[in-house]
């Protein structure tokens, strides 16, 4: 069974939502925190509701709505989201008040909206969608888990027009904590030159990207989603290469059949070492693109990469800003996304022209 990406929408630190050109005017940041550029939410959400929604809920609901609008689908057959940290802002608000007010006279709103499934639930509520609704919260493969669920639902013929997305927000508090954990670079730099001077740490990001998956062929479809696979703690580079080759073999492909590989380099020495080693071996002859300098590092950043891949294929253009080097095929038909999260979770997604 073939599975197609019918439509896609992303809210990110770049100009990605609405009628905008495809990453031709990259937004430059000079700090280590990239914040999503928020659209006028009233175009997507009832203004009465916007006020009560946290940042991640607004991003998620708006990206979902835009994705459905583009596909001209009113109510999807299922709603599935992936998020590692969920509704952080509401969680931290409630936690802070709980400590500050010594557990007395707490307002409930932040608690109510703190559950990880809030974004998926709010979309269902807005659309009166009674269908399958699920949320995956597994670190760097939260989005991939959601995607696998959607693919299985389509294969089981349980549903069509499945809305699947990845959402993550960075809050002031989480930025401070992650900074203390040593995730980010210690001095400011331009995100557009993130890969120029390798050093320790990356830049933080956030965003929401949604996709409408269908089993129905149509000339309007953006791309075909051939498959997704994750693997945990590979024993080393040879093992990773073996797993990538095995994934490609499932689809009767070899690495040189791939027109473009989108990789998850994030500017951190240790993180990028894996991509560099693969670049010298398995990936040494394929064209490479980067994406994390545009959206920052966050657990579901691969959803931004998938949005990018689907657009590259449909628009038949590879934006200058994502090219690692000269691109052999300017109209790629087969795109592989390879990302890893702390070298623990590795993920592969294969997308091709319909």
């Amino acid at each position, binding site marked *: 069974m073939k599975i197609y990406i019918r439509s896609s929408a992303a809210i990110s630190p770049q100009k990605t939502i609405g009628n905008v050109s495809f990453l031709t005017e990259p937004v430059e940041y000079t700090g280590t925190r990239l914040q999503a550029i928020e659209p006028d939410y009233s175009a997507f959400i009832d203004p009465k509701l916007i006020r009560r929604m946290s940042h991640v809920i607004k991003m998620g609901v708006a990206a979902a709505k835009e994705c459905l609008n583009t596909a001209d689908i009113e109510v999807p057959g299922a709603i599935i989201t992936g998020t590692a940290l969920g509704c952080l802002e509401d969680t931290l608000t409630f936690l802070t008040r709980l400590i500050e007010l010594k557990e007395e006279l707490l307002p409930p709103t932040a*608690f109510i909206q703190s559950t990880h*499934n*809030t974004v998926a639930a709010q979309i269902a509520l807005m659309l009166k969608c*009674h269908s399958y*609704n699920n949320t995956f919260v597994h670190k760097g493969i939260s989005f991939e888990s959601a995607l696998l669920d959607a693919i299985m639902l389509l294969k089981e*013929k349980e549903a069509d027009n499945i809305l699947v997305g990845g959402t993550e927000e960075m809050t002031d508090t989480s930025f401070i904590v992650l900074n203390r954990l040593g995730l980010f670079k210690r001095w400011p730099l331009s995100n557009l030159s993130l890969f120029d001077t390798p050093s320790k740490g990356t830049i933080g990001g956030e965003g929401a990207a949604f996709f409408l998956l269908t089993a129905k062929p149509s000339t309007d479809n953006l791309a075909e989603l051939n498959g997704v696979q994750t693997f945990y703690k590979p024993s080393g580079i040879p093992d990773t290469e073996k797993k990538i080759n095995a994934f490609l073999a499932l689809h009767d492909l070899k690495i040189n059949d791939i027109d473009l590989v989108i990789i998850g380099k994030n500017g951190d020495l240790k993180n990028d070492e894996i991509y560099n080693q693969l670049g010298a071996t398995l990936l040494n002859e394929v064209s490479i693109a980067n994406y994390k300098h545009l959206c920052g590092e966050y657990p579901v950043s691969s959803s931004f990469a998938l949005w990018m891949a689907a657009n590259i294929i449909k628009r038949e253009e590879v934006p200058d800003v994502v090219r690692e080097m000269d691109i052999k095929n300017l109209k790629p038909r087969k795109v592989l996304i390879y990302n890893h999260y702390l070298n623990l979770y590795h993920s592969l997604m294969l997308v091709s022209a319909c």
Partner: protein
Amino acid sequence: MASEKYITSGCTISNNTVYKNGEIIFESRGTDVQSFLLSVYKHFEINYSRFYKMDNLCKLGWLASEILLKDDFKTVNYKPEEIGLILSNANSSLDTDQKYLASVRDIPSPSLFVYTLPNLVTGEICIRNNFKGEDAFFVFESFNAEFIERYVSNLLDNNNLQACICGWVELLESEYKAALFLVEKVKKENAVTFTAANMNNLFEDKSKSPEVYIAGVGVITATGNNVAECLASFEKEEAGIGEITMMNTVHRNELPVAEVKLTNKKLVEMTGLPKDISRTTLLSLVAAREALDDAAIPGLSSLRTGFVSANTVGGMDRSEAFFIDFIADNSKGKLRNVFDHECGSVTEAVADQLGITDYMTTISTACSSSANAIFYGARLIKNNVLDVVVAGGAEALTKFTLNGFNTLMILDKEFCKPFDENRRGLNLGEGAGYVVLVSEKVAKTLNDPLYCKLSGYNNSNDAYHQTASSPDGTGSYLAMTRALEKSGLHPSDIDYINLHGTGTPNNDSAEGTAVKRVFDPHYPPMSSTKSFTGHTLGASGGIEAVFSVLAIRHGIVYPNLRFETKMNELPFAPETRFLKDQKIKNVMSNSFGFGGNCTSLIFSEI
């Protein structure tokens, strides 16, 4: 008199493909209807010269009946008058009508004219097989499985017929579809219950989904640290609810909770995990390990094994400690305490201990989380991604959730009374529950008997309010009915319902209304085991799945403690006694949560 009725054979022909009992038995590529039907005729080596005279609609229906009845149907078992035919389609005989009309312009074709009635299909099948029972042909816009079920059931229940071929035969120009079902009163191998849902499944060409079995269970709750202790508490009718002893909160002595009776220190000793790890991780490992040991799967390391776990607030108990210092000074707070804040960290730490590396993920859909984890695990097996999945969930008591539910004013200051007219709210609990799911292939290699199978499941959304349930229980009604559909069972097949039954006015009213809509007037015994364990949030679906599985294994119904007064709005009351030696074949387990997430699971005896 209602009798047991089974679909003993099913045949679908559509899209150049012939399916029998959900499996593809013939495919041909890129031919027109006429030549496709001829290729089917030739493939199955049928010799019946009348075939060549038939119009396309008759050919289609007749071929489907031949394939339906071949192999094991013996007409000698019935009198000709006892076998009937009830067929239907959308466009009657329009295909031939149009051809006949076209022929009228030249010379009207008598051979076409005789086929300008849809019931010629039933005629051709009866002539071939000498069937003389009642036959009829109905016209519907689309396949109406509910009507066919009612009509045919009536004929069989009143003994007008003993066997009936029923279904759909549609053909118009290049579009065609036949789906025939043989319904008999005797159960044969591979037979499924005669229900609209099972007909629809066969109609949709959903290939038969492989079974997923439960091979092991593990649980830890306030009533016991393992399966045996929890079962003993049920029999003694001893709840695990009491005063807060471990959490440092202002609500001590005020709000009762259901604590697991082991300190973190003791749990660390038992599990060998580091001492500063989240209590949720500790509880998770205890129950998951018990489940995996219980399953005792030979050669586990050579199988594709996964861990699908659920929780709602991850390592929040540790984060609370971190934030006390952090809020006072952002450069303070032990980072180790916040490192495992993510829900996924709990799953990862336990998977590492269990040695599971092939696949792991975490689900968080509030209080239905671990029910969703269980059926997602089953689907990973059905989709041939994995062979074995440990699935369920864990949750430790935290100040975060205790205060959260307290602000919503749904915590009972006394012990909770689920489904009682005078219920006032829930008691929070903690624990973990896991089942070990195995594929058909793995099931055959086990030395110990399997517990049961997961026969039905559904996740539906109430889409009514972020926290409150709709008054008519839309989400829970949909979850229960769709899970029944999935399992191919009738409501009357359910022998016990493990209710979500939190004890809040809103949940029990909505769930009760939905139960009434599904089961009225025949209610199976039901109870909320949260009257023992408290509401364990992200763990509740896993814990209650374990209890449901054990109900089948041991033939027991759990009591609903402290129940006194039936709810005015409901015609039924929960079971209040511990019942042993019951015949429990099918158990439904409900789990509903914030965000309208409603999930029902059905476990069935093998």
